[in-house]
């Protein structure tokens, strides 16, 4: 490459793509190249300098609109679009409908594809695991293997392809006996599970949930939370890279989102919206190690988790506000100790009666 440059004029440099990119957006690679080139061809230094100058002169004024003008332009635009839409459909909408709703037909699915290299490290979890978790045999129902956990129990199992699944309380996973012999590896999940999927490009790993959300991966570590009674389906990525595709019933892709490590995609069932946020992925899957981690978690969700974790029923008075948040890290604690924690943080009073826990006190009130 240096060969052609050694006969370049200043004009030639100023028109060369690689040179232009170096002047405008220098990076390590181009910097190294051009610095060495200048050293090796000191006769070219002047031409290069001249070309640099020309490129930097060609710096256009940004006739940017100021923010408030832009906002009003944008608002006018949004209004016009709304009017257009209303012309198109005689039915008026009460609120500005979010576009995805139009795209998704009744049984639309999200397909989450993993691009990029899988990071299954067998050393990662096996040694770190205190195998306190129950490890029963799976039940065979017809030609389906099934494993389920009641409340208060968590377990780990290995799938025929070597993938590892941590199953949380009140969760069920099933897959066919032919699991390893088909060109997709399908599992059906109800509840919450953490997956460490073995990389296999020729057989995508697919997690099916009850709410038309399908998660397709090649090999990675991620957490899926899809409880029937929850308002959301949540997917958290620990390692790898995931591409989320919205797919209509006819198989057409109509939306695309990339999930990176330490991001969580939350699908709100009721409103059909998808939310992506940065999270601490290991916090969210800490339950595998018998940690309960609450990070600004609303008390409502804290109680739901405690119910599943300890197999209890929590009773609070109706209309109790449970939106305030709790941040805590609880490791292998008894229920009593967790409730004592809440005594301190939220001034609760509690009564335990077998599997029923009655909670009152300050909670979220001031």
């Amino acid at each position, binding site marked *: 490459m240096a060969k052609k440059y050694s006969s370049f004029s*200043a*004009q030639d440099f*100023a*028109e060369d793509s690689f040179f*232009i990119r170096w002047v*405008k957006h220098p990076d390590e690679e181009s910097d190294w190249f051009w610095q060495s080139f200048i050293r090796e061809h000191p006769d070219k230094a002047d031409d290069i300098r*001249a070309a640099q100058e*020309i*490129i*930097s*002169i*060609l*710096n*256009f*004024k*940004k*006739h*940017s*609109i100021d923010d408030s*003008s*832009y906002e009003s*332009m*944008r608002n*006018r*635009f*949004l209004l*016009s*679009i709304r009017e*257009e*839409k209303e012309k198109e459909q005689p039915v008026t909408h009460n609120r500005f409908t*979010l*576009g*995805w709703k*139009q*795209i998704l037909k009744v049984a639309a699915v999200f397909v989450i594809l993993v691009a990029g*290299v899988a*990071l299954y490290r067998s050393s990662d979890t096996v040694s770190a695991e205190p195998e306190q978790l129950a490890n029963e045999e799976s039940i065979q129902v017809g030609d389906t293997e099934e494993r389920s956990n009641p409340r208060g129990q968590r377990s780990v199992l290995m799938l025929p392809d070597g993938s590892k699944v941590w199953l949380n309380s009140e969760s069920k996973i099933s897959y066919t006996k032919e699991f390893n012999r088909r060109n997709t590896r399908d599992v059906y999940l109800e509840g919450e599970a953490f997956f460490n999927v073995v990389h296999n490009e020729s057989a995508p790993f697919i997690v099916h949930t009850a709410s038309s959300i399908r998660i397709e991966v090649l090999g990675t570590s991620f957490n899926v939370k899809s409880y029937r009674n929850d*308002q959301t389906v949540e997917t958290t990525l620990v*390692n790898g*890279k995931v591409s989320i595709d919205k797919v209509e019933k006819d198989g*057409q*892709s*109509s*939306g*695309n*989102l*990339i999930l*990176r*490590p*330490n*991001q969580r995609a939350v699908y*709100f069932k*009721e*409103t059909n*919206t*998808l*939310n*992506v*946020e*940065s999270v601490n992925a290991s916090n969210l899957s800490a339950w595998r190690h018998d940690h309960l981690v609450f990070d600004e978690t609303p008390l409502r969700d804290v109680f739901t988790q405690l119910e599943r974790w300890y197999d209890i029923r929590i009773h609070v008075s109706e209309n109790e506000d449970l939106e305030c948040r709790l941040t805590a890290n609880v490791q292998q604690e008894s229920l009593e100790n967790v409730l004592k924690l809440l005594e301190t943080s939220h001034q609760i009073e509690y009564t335990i009666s077998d599997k029923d826990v009655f909670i009152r006190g300050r909670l979220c009130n001031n």
Partner: protein
Amino acid sequence: MSSSTQHQKELTVERTQQIGDKTSVIFHPSHIDEAVLWKAFKGGDEKALIVMFDRFAKALYNYGVKIHHEGEVVKDAVQELFIELWKNKENLADTDSIKFYLFKSLRRKLFRIKKSKADHDFLQLSELDDSVAPSHEFFVIAEQTSLEKRQRLMKMLDSLTARQREAVLLRYFEEMSYDKIAGIMEMSKQSAYNLIHKAISQLRGLEEDEPCQKI
């Protein structure tokens, strides 16, 4: 590969929406692939259209102002462009560069506006062309430049024709390929090369004419 070096910062959200007592957060779509965005928009997803607006409206305005000069006219044109896009969405072909398509469409639109004004006012198009601002007004000249150098630079930049200026903007500012420049400016690729070449040699030529004054 540990967690990627990019994307460590918090994802910003586009907006939150209250539905009853639930706050729904809409994801920030900055990483949506263009081909997918375009398809979604064609399919009737107005959210995709808004994403396109947010992504390109400012650059379009900036470009429009350089070739047409009147800010208000360009503002309206940019808005109309997106609305017309929405109205015609079913008839549009697939594209793998939305930016290219938008730039090209805006240019055509501004040209049509200019032409109708010329027809209306019984002017020649060429009379409308550079009538407003001299070329150097569109460029940023570094503050530390001496008065003498400033004047020299202004002279150089003024020597550029409107078309040369536009081509230079598309190449050096918007960093478009020659193919795209040719498409937007409705000329052959060879013409685009020639135009840029002429512009640069214009700038070089004037530079070389000046006596070297080493301070």
